[in-house]
């Protein structure tokens, strides 16, 4: 279900920016080779803007490409979740605000996407989302949305997991991590994973053994989640791209829940707020020490 009006606005803005030389490239969406699901598109020429589309299959968080493109000014099409990612990148000094023209799109939900199949079920993260208008943009597309909806509860599956016994947790996770083939798609697709050399690829110190086996896989997935805590904006791409269906977002959502409860911090709402792990309150106990 494509909204003609939104698409037209995107194309017009893209054409304008490319023609007047404000930017060199537009990061947007086009229709994929299955003819139904969107894929990322990079538009360099005004005459190509008609490739751009927007619909509820535009699940990709395009901000993950911004570091690749930081040499020249670009425009980027963002959903509200992706907009928070941009704040994170700005806060971590990875991109320059003046080099990014943000085309923000008011978004209700995106659907579960898998190649060759057209789904109508909203993604779980969208069901608990209450940020329908981008927190940062230069050009907004789409009408205002009632944001008065109650603050999202921590997702049910997280609380369910918390409720399990240690034994059941171990069984569940070792089951999941035994499937992991360490293709690192979760890392590659994540806007927050931009280290030059990921800890998992380091030979010395060898944080994670080379074996693609459950303990090593668990170490990798544990630290991936930890390194993203306080930085993950819940775009759910990690879980989407996992070829063996490990529910990685279950880890990230847990960490964001804890970050929220411990430090009253929600990642990506602003680029000014100090990162939760780069700040502290003297008199917080966090149930540590005594």
């Amino acid at each position, binding site marked *: 279900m494509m909204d003609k009006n939104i698409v037209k606005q995107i194309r017009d803005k893209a054409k304008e920016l490319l023609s007047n030389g404000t930017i060199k490239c537009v990061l947007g969406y086009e229709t994929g080779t299955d003819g139904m699901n969107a894929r990322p598109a990079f538009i360099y020429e005004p005459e190509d803007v008609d490739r751009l589309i927007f619909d509820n299959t535009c699940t990709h968080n395009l901000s993950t490409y911004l570091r690749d493109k930081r040499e020249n000014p670009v425009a980027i099409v963002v959903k509200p979740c992706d907009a928070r990612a941009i704040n994170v990148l700005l806060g*971590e*000094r*990875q991109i320059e605000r003046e080099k990014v023209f943000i085309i923000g799109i008011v978004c209700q939900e995106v659907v579960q996407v898998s190649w060759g199949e057209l789904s109508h079920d909203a993604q779980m993260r969208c069901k608990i989302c209450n940020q329908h208008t981008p927190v940062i943009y230069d050009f907004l597309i789409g009408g205002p949305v009632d944001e008065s909806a109650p603050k999202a509860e921590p997702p049910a599956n997280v609380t369910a997991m918390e409720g399990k016994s240690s034994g059941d947790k171990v069984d569940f996770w070792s089951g999941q991590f035994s499937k992991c083939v360490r293709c690192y798609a979760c890392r590659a697709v994540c806007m927050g994973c*931009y*280290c*030059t*050399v990921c*800890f998992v690829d*380091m030979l*010395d*110190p*060898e*944080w994670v053994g080379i074996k693609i086996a459950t303990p090593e896989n668990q170490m990798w997935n544990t630290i991936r989640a930890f*390194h993203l805590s306080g930085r993950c904006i819940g775009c759910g791409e990690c879980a989407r791209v996992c070829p063996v269906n490990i529910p990685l977002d279950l880890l990230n959502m847990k960490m964001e829940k804890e970050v929220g409860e411990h430090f009253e911090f929600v990642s990506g709402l602003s680029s000014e707020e*100090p*990162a939760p*792990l*780069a*700040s502290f309150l003297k008199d917080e106990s966090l149930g540590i020490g005594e």
Partner: protein
Amino acid sequence: MSRIGVFVCHCGRNIAGTVDISTVVEAAKKLPNVVYVEDNKYTCSEVGQDVIKKTIEENQLNRVVIGACSPRMHENTFRKAVASAGLNPYLLEIANIREHCSWVHSDDKEKATAKAIDLVKMAVAKVARHQELFPKQVGLTKRALVIGGGISGIQAALDIADAGHEVFLVEREPTIGGRMAQLDKTFPTLDCSACILTPKMVDVAQHPNITLLTYAQVLKVSGFKGNFEVEILQKTRLVDHDKCTGCGSCWQKCPQKVASEFDFGLGNRKTIYIPFPQAIPNKPVIDTSNCRYIKYQGWEKDSKGKKPPECRICEKVCPTDAVDWGQKDEIINEKFGAIVVATGFKTFDHTTYGEYGGGRYPDVITGLQLERLMSASGPTEGEVIRPSDGTHPKTVVFISCVGSRDDHIGRSYCSKVCCMYMAKHTIMLKEHDPDIQSYVFYIDNRTGGKGYEEFSRRAQEEAGALYLRGRISKIYRDGPKMMVCGDDALMGRPVQIAADLVVLATGMDPSDGVVELAQTLNISYDTNRFLIEAHPKLRPVETQTSGIFLAGVAVGPRDIPDCVAHGSAAAVKVVGLLSQDTLTTDPMTSIVDPAKCVGCFMCEDVCPFSAIYRETTRDGRPVAIINETLCTGCGLCVASCRPGAIDLHGYTNQQLLAEVVSLCR
């Protein structure tokens, strides 16, 4: 390829009594890269150390592990021993098999031995990853900056200068002397404040090593310990102090009077003035906001009021043409090796308290105002009279803890000196006029200090001051009298006193602008805006920014003797620093791999010592760089560095991982 030698110490029976040394030795022999193992009775002894030296040479060892007591005990001893054999002293690792093993597991020899083996194993794994480390030498500027010309700053400046180092003393006011200069007498000896202070002020002015900058302010500070670069603003005085002789004809003739800040408005000064007769420098400044000629120059046709007279009398009467209307603010840039911050205090603003009249009653004054009234060089030449009508007060009420120990006005701390100066005041009043009866309303009478309690007694017994425990609920005017209503907590009854004069024992607030200064210097301050010491007990004059020291009330309320001691203490630290020819940096600092750094600068955010700065690589990436002089080797940045671009010499990720892995696999 590392060739590791392991030395296992018996420490007499201390270790050998519990740990089976021979088993440890055998196990050590099997460890990777270990080429030599030996045990000694006392490895730390002369003999033991010689064995280490000898063995290193004979077996070409390039790493050494010593299983002995805690590294906190003998690490340096053994580093020296290793170094004397020509090996880099940092190629040593100590396995703590005494404090962490034999002494705490004496109940199970077998397990203790097993643990000792593990600890040695871990040390071997770690030492294999040790690198040669070399302390760096950096030069320093042998010159100190003292900020604040009160008694603390003066003391620090004089002591540093006497030790033979150059000192710049920067004071914001036109004169040095600070609060002490405003006092008439000091407790508990009652010697005249000026008599003991002014000689020191003169010393400052005359000291060949001291450059005095009054009417000046520190604007910017960059650099680090040993090499600070400081930008100082010299405000214009409109008087050329090189020409001026301080003859005083200008301020005698100046027609424009304004209320004197020095006398808290109890008296007047001129617009060309020195704050008080013994001011140092004893040369005037022109108060540009009130000077008639400045106003005249600034006057324009359309501006309201009639044109002020041109005046310029000071210029006319000056025998040396020192008045210089063209003089401008000046920026002075200097380098310093160390900085002392002695910015002192101001008295608490008592108008906060409505119940004490909120400043509406002229006869409700502060302790410092009373000092000015009693001072022979003060506005009344030492005659204690009521500001309202000039009559001599007979009944004087003192109220303690005004702006101290009161959470409601955000002053939870005790100002420390008030109890004592109230006692002093009552005694001095009695001396001024035997008919004066003093009443002191106190919360607690705190007289800690040499001769202080005796002094307080004297106030009560000889000066007959009446001490009443309790707070004052209200003061109001009743005819000529000030009615003071409170309660006598000990008697448990309300009291009301018809006073002629009420003196508020106002507490101490940090000086204005101290927060801005702290931020420029990158030192921290507490919720009351007092500056924070590096350690409240063990490092009372240092800050967490090395090379910057603290003195006096800027750190927290204290009396004159404490300030003088504090100033000297700071001076000693400065002298200790400046007496070195170069600064040696501990090589166990963090180091950045620019190739891995992604420029998120989380390290910069967490570093408590601002030891991290930004640099741009050849390929144009902003990356973090460590300033080894400032880095203390805490490793906070290392653990905050997601990309693993930072590591800590001596405790690298490789080394700590090697310990973990060697233990587990």
